[in-house]
């Protein structure tokens, strides 16, 4: 099977890769680019563990073909923090103990960032609806939502 050459942008950096046309963006990130921060949960768009942004939209990378990344701008968990330290959302997840096994965490953090860019002051209900596509099987959602709302408040104060 011939591989396809794809030129894209990931977390603001130009990236090129070769992939099989049937590979998902999740396959490419994890297996070809060694960007294993993005997790595979269900592989069918139900759990949100593989959430990334594509041209500013939150998507499941398991439901995007790698070849569709051509010319697109992809954002992953690796682009959330910086060399100077963690993003406020990451800090708040730690502070509120909003994770246990950590498989859902990268997806939740990417989704939370997308939420707060769209709506910097969500109600608890709005946050729960927006994040309903991110499943957590151990921490439970209360600590996560507390972390999200605290991060929102901190980010509003900093803005």
């Amino acid at each position, binding site marked *: 099977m011939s591989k396809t050459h794809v030129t894209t942008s990931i977390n603001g950096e130009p990236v090129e890769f070769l992939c099989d*046309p049937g590979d998902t963006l999740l396959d490419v990130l994890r297996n070809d680019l060694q960007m294993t921060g993005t997790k595979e949960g269900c*592989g069918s*768009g139900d759990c949100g563990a593989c*959430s990334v942004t594509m041209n500013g939209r939150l*998507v499941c990378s398991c*439901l995007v*073909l790698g070849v569709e990344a051509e010319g697109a701008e992809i954002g992953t968990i690796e682009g959330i923090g910086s060399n100077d330290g963690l993003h406020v959302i990451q800090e708040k997840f730690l502070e509120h103990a909003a994770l246990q096994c950590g498989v859902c965490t990268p997806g939740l953090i990417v989704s939370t960032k997308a939420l707060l860019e769209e709506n910097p002051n969500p109600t608890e209900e709005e946050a729960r609806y927006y994040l309903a596509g991110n499943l957590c099987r151990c921490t439970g959602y209360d600590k996560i939502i507390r972390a999200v709302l605290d991060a929102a408040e901190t980010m509003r104060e900093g803005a």
Partner: protein
Amino acid sequence: MVSVVYEAPDLIEGAVNLLAKSDIPAHVLAGGTDLIIQTNNSSDAERLIVDVKKIAGMTDANLTDAALELGPSMSCASFTERDDIKAVYPGLVEAAYLIGSTQVQGRASVGGNLCNSSPAADTIPALIANGAQCVIAGPNGERTVPVEEFVTGVGQNCMEKGELLKQITVPRPAANTSDAYLRFIPRTEMDIAVAGAGVSVTLDDTGTCTAARVAIGAVAPTALLVPEAADALVGSKLDEAALQAAADAASAASNPITDRRGTVEYRRQVVGVLVKRAASIAAERAKEG
């Protein structure tokens, strides 16, 4: 694992040509929320995937004085953000908004929902209630099919090899007309409809219903237009007796199955209730409009 050949033409003609001439199973890729899962689970040795999102107009919506010209592959997230469209077709927009999570909304499309042709597709009853038409491009030119005739069975539709859904055209409703879509699911969100109802009503200055369209979903192999339910509403002020008659007509027209989401009896009952409530909401909206 299925070996995929991927093409992303930038013209309708190119897509039609690829689909028509393919000697391996060929599929159109819009948002991929159904197709990529089906491809991963497929027993095909090879598959041609034709990504149509690079074709001009496929991911845009144009609201004119005459109609909404909806690019079938426009993501539900982009579609539901359009306040101008929501003001004219609130029920259609709420149906699109019900599909999946935020992540799925970022990719899923109304055209994809239609072409996947699930009996439980949320947008199909809402499209039928609005009298929407499918513009289909193919090797022999274009043809237009009403949405209620597009889906022919569970996961099946009227498109022939080489054909492609090019546009969904939703006519501008008459004055004092509005729509609503309701579905029943056991959870609060992100579930598949047990039953659904899309209703459009037109009122005159006295509040009498002068025209209506009622469509039901998830209660038959395809979404159904139910003229008997619309007839029960027309001429009434949408009083309890008229609403109940419409509900009874919808229940009678339904032909559901029993599965883990609901029984035949339950679905028949619930679809009537949904028609009643959706008609009331559409009427309230028509009065406000």
